[in-house]
């Protein structure tokens, strides 16, 4: 339907597309040679789209016997220099963790899409961002990193597919694109704007040793000195990726006293909350990491110097907030609001958490001026205040509103 032969106008028309299908088509248009997958909700439509479209395009589609097999098929195909993609959802990504470590260790470029659902274990099929740790801190064993891209809209997901292949091939690394179940399952009008990253001849790809020495793609090295050198080279690569590929978006941050840090669907909820909060006079903006690793820590650190507080919003118990706190280094208070189990925070909830943060910053400021006029912004996110009793429903903990709400028996705003 959207072959390369179509006119530019057709390619630019806006159509209503489901996230999973749009991501799949974007991968195809980015030149994906082979796709390997296994059915799992909420990404099954991605696999189904590939099942129909890849053979149409004369490309490779295999429904594997497991996610283990799918990712290893991807490893084999990518080792020959093919442009390869796999997709799954959280429990399936856990099964792919082993091969991701091997691919990182052996330099095999594969793009993985994780349409995240709620865990732990089999969990549920609702949208979630509870795989942030998994995506950014490692999946498998060993000292390695994987670039992680997090779109906040279906259109952005389509753009990031081409970028993912590019980054994977440029640095010889697996790349993850993470989207919560909403981005996978929702439909949005998208412009059919595609990009096919340039193809390069790889001097490492296994193509048969014709007129050249045989090539080996491996991660093993039993000589500790050699293995350490390989690891040092890998870390060097990660520094290069951090230097060149870190991405973020700042929205309404120019005059902001507060920032919400959020990615994916949480960032969209945050936008609504920000618009509402600004109408009430709270100057708040959005800082949205687009690469979760490398995390835009320098940029966030710079911003935090001028902020009275940061609210991190996630569809999790608070995972990215750890990286936010590391980046902020106590320069301003960092609060968190999140929902789990497949639920999504509402703009009203986020607005409430924001209001509480603003009020607290105000009180802290006032207290600071009263005791010591020269005091600058407090560095501790938790000023010395009596902690509200968990059952005292009239007062809310600004730092853990979610926990507090649960203790009130699920009576949510």
């Amino acid at each position: 339907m959207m072959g390369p032969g179509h006119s530019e106008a057709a390619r630019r028309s806006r159509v209503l597309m489901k996230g999973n299908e749009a991501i799949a088509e974007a991968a195809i248009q980015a030149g994906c040679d082979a796709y390997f997958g296994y059915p799992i909700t909420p990404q099954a439509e991605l696999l189904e789209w590939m099942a129909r479209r890849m053979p149409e395009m004369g490309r490779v589609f295999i429904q594997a016997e497991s996610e283990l097999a799918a990712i290893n098929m991807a490893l084999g195909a990518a080792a020959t220099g093919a442009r390869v993609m796999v997709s799954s959802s959280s429990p399936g990504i856990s099964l792919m963790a082993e091969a991701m470590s091997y691919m990182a260790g052996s330099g095999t470029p594969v793009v993985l899409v994780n349409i995240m659902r709620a865990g732990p274990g089999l969990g549920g099929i609702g949208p979630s961002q509870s795989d942030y740790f998994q995506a950014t801190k490692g999946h498998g064993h060993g000292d390695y990193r994987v670039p992680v891209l997090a779109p906040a809209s279906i259109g952005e997901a389509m753009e990031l597919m081409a970028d993912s292949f590019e980054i994977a091939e440029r640095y010889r690394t697996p790349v993850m694109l993470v989207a919560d179940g909403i981005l996978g399952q929702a439909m949005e009008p998208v412009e059919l704007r595609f990009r096919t990253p340039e193809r390069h001849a790889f001097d490492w790809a296994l193509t048969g040793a014709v007129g050249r020495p045989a090539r080996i793609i491996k991660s093993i090295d039993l000589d500790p000195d050699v293995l350490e050198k390989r690891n040092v080279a890998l870390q060097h690569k990660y520094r290069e990726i951090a230097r060149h590929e870190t991405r973020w978006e700042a929205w309404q941050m120019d005059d902001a006293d507060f920032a919400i840090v959020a990615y994916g669907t949480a960032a969209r909820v945050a936008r609504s909350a920000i618009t509402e909060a600004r109408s009430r006079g709270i100057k708040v903006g959005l800082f949205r990491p687009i690469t979760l690793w490398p995390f835009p820590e320098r940029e966030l650190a710079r911003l935090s110097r001028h902020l009275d507080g940061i609210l991190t919003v996630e569809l999790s118990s608070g995972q990215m907030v750890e990286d936010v706190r590391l980046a902020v280094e106590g320069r301003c208070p960092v609060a968190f609001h999140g929902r789990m189990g497949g639920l999504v925070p509402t703009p009203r909830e986020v607005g409430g958490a924001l209001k509480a943060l603003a009020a607290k910053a105000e009180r802290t400021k006032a207290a600071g001026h009263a005791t010591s006029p020269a005091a600058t912004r407090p560095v501790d996110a938790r000023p010395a205040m009596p902690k509200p009793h968990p059952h005292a429903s009239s007062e809310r903990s600004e730092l853990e509103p979610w926990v507090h709400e649960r203790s009130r028996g699920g009576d949510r705003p």
Partner: protein
Amino acid sequence: MTLNTTGPASHGAAPARLIYARPPVLRDRSTHYCPGCGHGVVHRLLAEVMTELKLAPHTIAVAPVGCAVFAYDYLDVDFVEAPHGRAPAVATGIRRVRPEAFVLTYQGDGDLAAIGTAEIVHAAARGERITAIFVNNGIYGMTGGQMAPTTLLGQRTTSSPTGRDAALMGYPIRITEMLAQLPGVSYATRGTLADAASIGKLKAMIRRACEIQLEGGGFSIVEVLSNCPVGWGMTPQQSLEHLKGPVVEAFPVGLIVDRWTGQKPAATTGCPEPARDPEA
């Protein structure tokens, strides 16, 4: 290339006659395998077949986890290392994007018949046009001689110190017979390197499995009954005797199925007939 020539040099009269040389696919290097280990023989046979069939420039091979993880140190062809047990999936990926390549996997019994069971079964079920060399020595050699899925009943290993007890540890798996049930399998056979005659037959099996891939056949597998003197606690000589005796008794040698050349499965002692090929 070093030519290992033998000749009656001391007698002086007859000119040196080359009767044995290292095939060019075999790299010139010392082995990391233990004394008496069968892997070296299998590597050599593969190298001979690959040389004879001129396969090397087209080959993309998949190395396993286990003793043969370093297969690429000996076979001078493009190699990718697979995670433990996943070689058939890795080979599937290669096969599908490189239809012109000769795709070879080399796996041990722990790799293929325990941790990688799903991958080998489904690669066979899909009839992937790959050739699998399955070296069965009934033990986890690299990790120190633990019980493998193919360890014989009663056999002592470091993880079955009183001998494999069926009640507690189950029975050895004849996985090649299991695979042979699948219509996607073009060729499944079992050989051994217990003696020179068997090695000759084994080479013919490996050659046939490779030819079938070249001819466009589906999945082909050669199980090699091999020895592990160190893991078995035997001298190399004892291990070969053991191989010829109880091992061959438990894992009968011979053709299990050939759906490609239309040959009827050869009768093998004690081996259940594979299910009828539904396409036959």
